[in-house]
């Protein structure tokens, strides 16, 4: 089915400092996946790494958006019995 073309978000060139920070983060994530794989006794084959890393990045991005939200008190998911 023909779809109306939508404008793609314009990508702003990254500064060298930002590029370096992202590269460090990506490298750190590879190390994290390797370490977590060992700790959790999960097999992480080399050719799976790009997909696992991409999925982890997306999940962490979602998690960070939740983390940034300031919750009021009382949000504890605990067994609370009200009388």
């Amino acid at each position, binding site marked *: 089915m023909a779809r109306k073309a*939508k404008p793609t978000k314009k990508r702003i060139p990254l500064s060298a400092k930002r590029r370096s920070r992202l590269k460090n983060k990506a490298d750190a994530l590879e190390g994290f996946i390797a370490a977590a794989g060992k700790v959790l006794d999960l097999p992480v084959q080399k050719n799976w790494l790009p997909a696992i890393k991409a999925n982890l990045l997306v999940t962490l991005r979602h998690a960070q958006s939740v983390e940034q939200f300031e919750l009021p008190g009382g949000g504890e998911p605990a067994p609370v019995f009200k009388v």
Partner: protein
Amino acid sequence: MANFDPTWASASEIAEAVAAGHISAVGVIEQTLARIKKVDRKLNAFTKVTAARARRAAQKIDQDRAAGLQLGPLAGAPFAVKNLFDVAGIATVAGSKINRGNPVAKRDSPLIERLEAAGAILVGALNMGEYAYDFTGENIHDGNSRNPHDTDRMTGGSSGGSGGAVVGGEVPLSLGSDTNGSIRVPSSLCGLFGLKPTYGRLPRNRSFPFVDSLDHLGPIARSVRDLALAYDAMQGYDADDAACQDRPAEPTLAGLDRGIGGVRVAVAGGYFQQAAFPEALAALKRVAAALGAKTTVEIPEAQRARSAAYVVTATEGASLHLDRLRKRPNDFDPAVRDRLIAGAMVPATLVVKAQKFRRWYRDEVLKLFENVDVILAPATPCTAPKIGQQTFKLAGVEMSVRANLGIYTQPISFIGLPVACVPIPLSPLPIGVQIICAPWREDLALRVAHELERTGVAVAPRPNL
């Protein structure tokens, strides 16, 4: 009944015809099995056809009728279930290769038992995305479910076969599961009515889970009356599901025709309209106009709720499959395996925050129902994508189809609200709209859906197969 066509009649019409003696239950089942044989090569909706069992059940119904016994409200109506429901005598594969080696189920799911007690006849198990971690209906082990409106397109998932079989005229009724949208997404892409009940309303024991704190089971059909009949037959407590509420059944069928006078309807704005394709917005507008919805409500922090649902799904799903990931990683669909492994590695600090956020979000959304009774939202951002399509553009950003067809369903199931999905017959492909209600108000969601069906706004279009 010369014109009676059980391959497109509703379950309630079939039951009426069987009760009146216009057609035998055996006749219905033989025509159903012939239809499955004819079209399922194209649709790939079934993974198992339980023909012998169906024939035995049909014979029993015909014998009961001949003996003058009262028949159930679904007597003779064929149905099929997503292959994560336990069916006695076959392994519950849940779309996977790994589970094929499991022992066969000893007993049917309680929902199958309850539908059969109402006279419905199980004819088989249906294709699904592996372990329900999917919105596409694709499956590398069993082949892809195909959309009867265009077999090059997705059914949506993960209850892909549950959508394809019903709109393909193989059965009038199916059961699916919905963790993040897996009943509503295929209902939308296939052009069907679907019901995701309130979390805890229908028992889930003897079905294979995905994310226990988000899993729901429910029906898909071509008519609202069939949804109501099936839902009413399936209500009831079962102590073997810890989340199932011991709450009296609240039948919905008798109230379907009560109309919608006095019902306050609002449209979800903001997040629910930002990334939608024109067809999703056109369908929403059509439903809003038909219901006289003039107000727009903002579901607070819906995007963040979707993110929190994403995190809970990834981590709880990973927790469920951890042992299988360790022992049989090569037997997973790689796309599912890599998501689950990533989910296993998300730090717990972030997961706890997502859980706490869920409590806050639920309380905020429930406040909306002090001023409105029904909230409308798109079910999917677009009509059925092509099978194999990896990405689409949402609000100008290239995104994964597999992960994002449920962007509008996830923030709702995250807090367990009941939703009826209604099909809007746009051309060339249908698309669904969600009718969202307060907890335990399935009656209202179905009543509004029925009003849209009665006025011709919502209809399950018949494909040319």
